[in-house]
């Protein structure tokens, strides 16, 4: 397909058993575009981005990544990584009993030809990531700390830094700021702006519209598996957007 878009999705359907999580979504992510993905709890936001990042397959519809047609059964997380898609999942995807450095490099280990891990190099890089990206001020934490000894916010910091470290063309952030202090939220927003500056794209999912608004180029709202509205930032003010979303929830209650 001839396109500059990073992702094109047409009429995507996805069910989990009897639950229809997505019913015919058309969605695209343009080059160097930041998208604020909005919607109520259970609307299908996480399901949508997990299809892009290869965690879930889809039942119906078409998906293209960088113009290349994606077969739903073949698309895997590894494949998404290779195509330059980096995701911070809502669940954070960290294993508590494993060390920090192993969590950072899981799935993308630095290995020799036989698949043995270059432990020293991974630890060195992790220390660098902690110094430069996470800027941990906590006392005990080091590259060989176990994830279970980290606070909730620190864990989130690890998940986000992991995405920062692996340079990519599309960064997907699924509620990355829940439970973070104001300072930490600002770091995440700065990261999104930096992604934009580098000419890359981003999908940002959050329930706090005040955070989403200033960094996004376009807003897409979904409700019960369907896309309900879409605005460019220049066409709508924060107040109007807020009202729109409240209206949507009201309509649902009635």
């Amino acid at each position, binding site marked *: 397909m001839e396109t500059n878009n990073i992702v094109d999705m047409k009429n995507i359907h996805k069910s989990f058993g009897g639950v229809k999580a997505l019913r015919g979504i058309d969605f695209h992510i343009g080059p160097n575009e930041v998208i604020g993905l909005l919607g109520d709890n259970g609307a299908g936001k996480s399901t949508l981005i997990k299809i892009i*990042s*290869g*965690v879930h397959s889809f039942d119906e519809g078409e998906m293209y990544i960088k113009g290349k047609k994606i077969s739903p059964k073949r698309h*895997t*997380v*590894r494949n998404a*990584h290779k195509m330059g898609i980096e*995701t911070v*999942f809502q*669940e*954070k*995807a*960290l*294993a*508590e*009993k*494993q060390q920090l450095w*192993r969590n950072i490099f*899981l*799935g*993308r*280990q630095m*290995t020799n030809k*036989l*698949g*043995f*891990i270059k*432990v020293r190099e991974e630890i060195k890089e992790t220390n660098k990531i902690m110094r430069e990206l996470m800027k941990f001020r906590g006392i005990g934490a*080091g590259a060989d700390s*176990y994830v279970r000894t980290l606070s909730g916010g620190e864990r989130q910091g690890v998940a986000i830094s992991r995405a920062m470290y692996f340079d990519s063309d599309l960064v997907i952030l699924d509620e990355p700021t829940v439970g973070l202090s104001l300072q930490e939220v600002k770091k995440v927003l700065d990261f999104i702006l930096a992604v934009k500056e580098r000419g890359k794209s981003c999908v940002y999912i959050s329930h706090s519209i005040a955070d989403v608004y200033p960094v996004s180029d376009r807003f897409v709202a979904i409700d019960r598996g369907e896309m309900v509205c879409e605005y460019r930032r220049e066409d709508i003010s924060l107040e109007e957007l807020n009202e729109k979303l409240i209206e949507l929830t009201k309509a649902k209650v009635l």
Partner: protein
Amino acid sequence: MTRTKERTKQSFFFKYSSQFGLMIMMGLVLLAFIITSPNVFLKSGIYFSFLASVPTIGIMAMGLTFILGMGEIDLSFPSTMALSAFLFATVYRSTGNFFLAFLACIAAGILVGMTNGLIIAKIGVPSIVVTLGMQYLIRGLSNLLSDGLAIVVRLRGTLSHQILVGRFYNIPHQALWYLGITIFLFFLLYRHKFGEHVLFVGDNQEAARMMGVNVVWVKIGAFSLMGALAAMAGMFDLYRMGTWWPTMGDGYLMMIMAAVFVGGTSMFGGQATIFGTFLGAFMIGTLEAGIVAAGLKGFWTRFITGLLIISAVIIHTLLRKRK
């Protein structure tokens, strides 16, 4: 600088406190044996006989360490051991070719393991159920194939016998093989992508999947490894005994599980210790002979074994909580 140094220094003892605890326990048991029957335990003979018998248990315990680290269980490996050794015995008897027999033996083990892994990972049946069924199925299969009869194989005097279970200055070769396998598996678990994936799957399967780990392949791989190791253990036992028995492997299941748990691997997944299992296999594998040699009635064996298992596991759990 000094602060970080202190931290790592502390954490070395901290990190291996479970293993130190186990070693102290083993030392005490040994001391008790020496005191009760010095004429047996102050001579080297009994230790060499331990070195001949423990590797069979140890090799399978290593496989189970991977399986438990992955948060799964395998009940079928004693039967797998018997089926593989049966194939070794029959192929060797009819061809006289070690490599053909070895290949048939290992392939059978891997095949059983792969089947376990496939059903567990692809269809989603819990491993305890799949391997329980497989344990019966495979035992039944080797009984059917052998017609329930023992097979005598002339292995003594062959080159392969010398290489596998010969002696090097009194040290049984299987002990050296066991050491080599342990070292290899140590690196596989802690230094290889595969081992890392096994532990991540055991820790948080969903997270592992989201970070690009192919969970299905990891499970199939780990169960295949278990099968291959059970096959190897079967081959060593066959070489040691010279006879294949239809009941081969009976009685190993509980012992080997005990060895792994005593070693400090938990059954919750995400954590496994090769060194602990190495020690655990020696502890569990020598206890019965030790107790009998110490002049106690055989009845004491189970009682003391139970006591040691429970105290070891309590110690591990308490130490883990402190970490």
